[in-house]
């Protein structure tokens, strides 16, 4: 899937961000962001979307990869920070609870949010959270990052950057750069991290950055290690609003 088409269709969406060095940008919805990166082979947790509770429940029923317990989130172009607004419901056990959650989430939408939908994905299990991302650097162009992630990512600042695109060797060296190497060993009953799978995810993410015109940044945060393999459970892409 090519992002350009997504860019073009939604230029009327209100801009959500104003970046002082670059001018105006917009963020894609989580669902759109997930589809773009997944199109390049970046692993994301299985998900479906819908604009009503009925639509969501039907979608969950028809998609065998999405299994309870699930997480439901209200997402849309103008919604970049869901947690802060209470737009995320975790550990939903069954269809009845999901219906209630969908109704509540859709009820929280405000006119400024524009078009919204509910995204439902399987809860994935893993104690270790990485962050991966892209950033269009004013001096070096598109860069790709991996780091120790989750809500503490910006406090820990254990990250490594490269210029996109990257080779598998580059990606392996990015992991070697991180100070927190113990994260990749066996950890609290979870297996050793599958470095090759993380490397593949980073190479794929860097390709998104190198090939998608107009992309400014991307966050996969967190990128959870599930049985040692990376899986993005959130994605946010930021693009130029002028095309």
């Amino acid at each position, binding site marked *: 899937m090519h992002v350009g088409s997504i860019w073009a269709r939604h230029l009327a969406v209100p801009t959500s961000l104003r970046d*002082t060095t670059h001018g105006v940008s917009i963020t894609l919805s989580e669902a759109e962001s997930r589809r773009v990166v997944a199109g390049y082979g970046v692993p994301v947790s299985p998900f479906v979307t819908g604009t009503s509770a009925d639509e969501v429940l039907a979608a969950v029923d028809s998609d065998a990869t999405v299994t309870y317990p699930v997480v439901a989130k209200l997402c849309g172009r103008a919604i970049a920070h869901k947690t802060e607004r209470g737009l995320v419901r975790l550990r939903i056990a069954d269809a009845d609870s999901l219906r209630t959650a969908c109704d509540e989430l859709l009820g929280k939408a405000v006119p400024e949010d524009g078009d919204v939908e509910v995204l439902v994905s399987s809860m994935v299990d893993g104690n270790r959270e990485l962050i991966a991302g892209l*950033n269009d650097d004013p*001096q070096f*162009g598109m*860069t790709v*990052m991996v780091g120790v992630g989750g809500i503490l*990512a910006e406090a820990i600042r254990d990250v490594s*950057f490269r210029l996109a695109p*990257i080779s598998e060797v580059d990606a392996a060296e990015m992991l070697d750069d991180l100070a927190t190497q113990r994260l990749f060993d066996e950890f609290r009953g979870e297996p050793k991290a599958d470095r090759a799978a993380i490397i593949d995810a980073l190479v794929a993410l860097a390709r998104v950055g190198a090939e998608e015109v107009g992309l400014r*940044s991307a966050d996969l945060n967190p990128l959870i290690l599930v049985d040692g393999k990376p899986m993005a459970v959130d994605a946010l892409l930021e693009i130029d609003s002028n095309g």
Partner: protein
Amino acid sequence: MADLSALFDPRGIIITGVSNHPGKFGFVTLHNILASGYEGQVFPIAREPGEVLGLDVLGSIDDVPDGAADMVFICTPPAINEGLLRQAAAKGVTAAFCAAGGYREAGQEGVEAEERLVDVCNELGIALAGPNGQGVVSTPAKMCAQIVAPYAPPGKIAIASQSGNFVSSFLNLANHTGVGVSRAVAAGNASVLGIADYLEYFTNDPETAVSLVYIESVEDGREMFERVRPLSQRKPIVVVKGGASAAGARAAASHTGALASDDAVFDGMCHQAGLIRARDVEEAFEAAATFASQPLPSGDRVVVVTTVGGWGVAAVDAMADTRLDPTPLPGDLLAAIDAKLPPRWSKNNPIDMAGGETRDTVPEILQLVAEHPDVDGVVLLGTGIQSNTAAMMRRGPFFPEHGLERIVGFHERQDTRYAEAATEISAATGTPIMVATELATTDPSNPAPASRRAAGQLCHASAGRAIRSLHHLAGYAAWRSARGL
């Protein structure tokens, strides 16, 4: 790619703005070119003909014989330099070092003057270094074409710097350590030739084994990355960056953007391109000096050899924040060493000889360690202490009686021998051997550092600094090996 051979190996040099005042740039440059032993022809130019430093000063570049000079060194103000460059080009000049200021650094008028300077050089096919730079040094040409000191001993390190001050710093360190330099250039305003151009020249230069650069600003980082990556595959490039601690505070919409400090991105670019990034100027020079004089290690396993205790412990501690691994001694190596030392030796890495060495012990143990296939690098500590004792005896009130003359001679010969053994064994085994003692700075005349210096080898001033250099060699070796180089 610009041909910079006339800049670094000119057959003759025209210097503009020469005066008989020894405080002026033109005079100092002429002095330094002559004092460094430059063997080509030198043509000082001034408004008033006369004589400076025994040379006839010409009143005009028109008086220079055709083809006699291919480089012009400019110490004259911007207003007249375009005309001078035209005259110089007519005589066969293909390279210019413009030391003169008054260009981009001097406001809008200077910006325009610099644009005209660039235009005229492009039109005339002149490779332009500077303007507003301190000069160029080339030891194969015995040339110190600089408005300041120093010159440096010949060697294999090539230097390019966005700050002339650090050219001087690196050259001072070359003089101090004895590990010499092939070329050095201050980029000045770098209006045409920049760091990447110099690196391309150095990488193709048979006189150069390693490049050493100081960078403050990277205008087009992506272009620089694309240009230097193929170069670092051929020869190591050591980089030290000024302004590295300034966080790139940008309004960022993403976590990734918020984490993308200038330094984090620059650092990642260095790793990706195979650039060896040092933390400061001293570390950068020492890394370059080590690249210039030691074989690359084939891995990260390091054995520390020390005459006595604490130094070895500190060396192992210093490895903690590096990629180096203080490897346990392999059984066969331990047994071989055990046969050479009294029972009180450490029987571990660091190899603490516990003062048990006799006449041949240090070279024998170095040989055993360096030739072992499971050892990638060696750090030798504690040399020079015998000569330090000898120095006190030599200066004390009892010398040369009481047998002191004989023992002093023995001590000094031993330290010389250890230093020579380190060089020979390293060359023979292909294993880098670092030698470190603070005597390198506290008493450079001590035979331990003095012999290292005589061999063109760096004597590090501390175990920690030796470890940093070895870390950089091992990092570059790993970068190469991961790419099948």
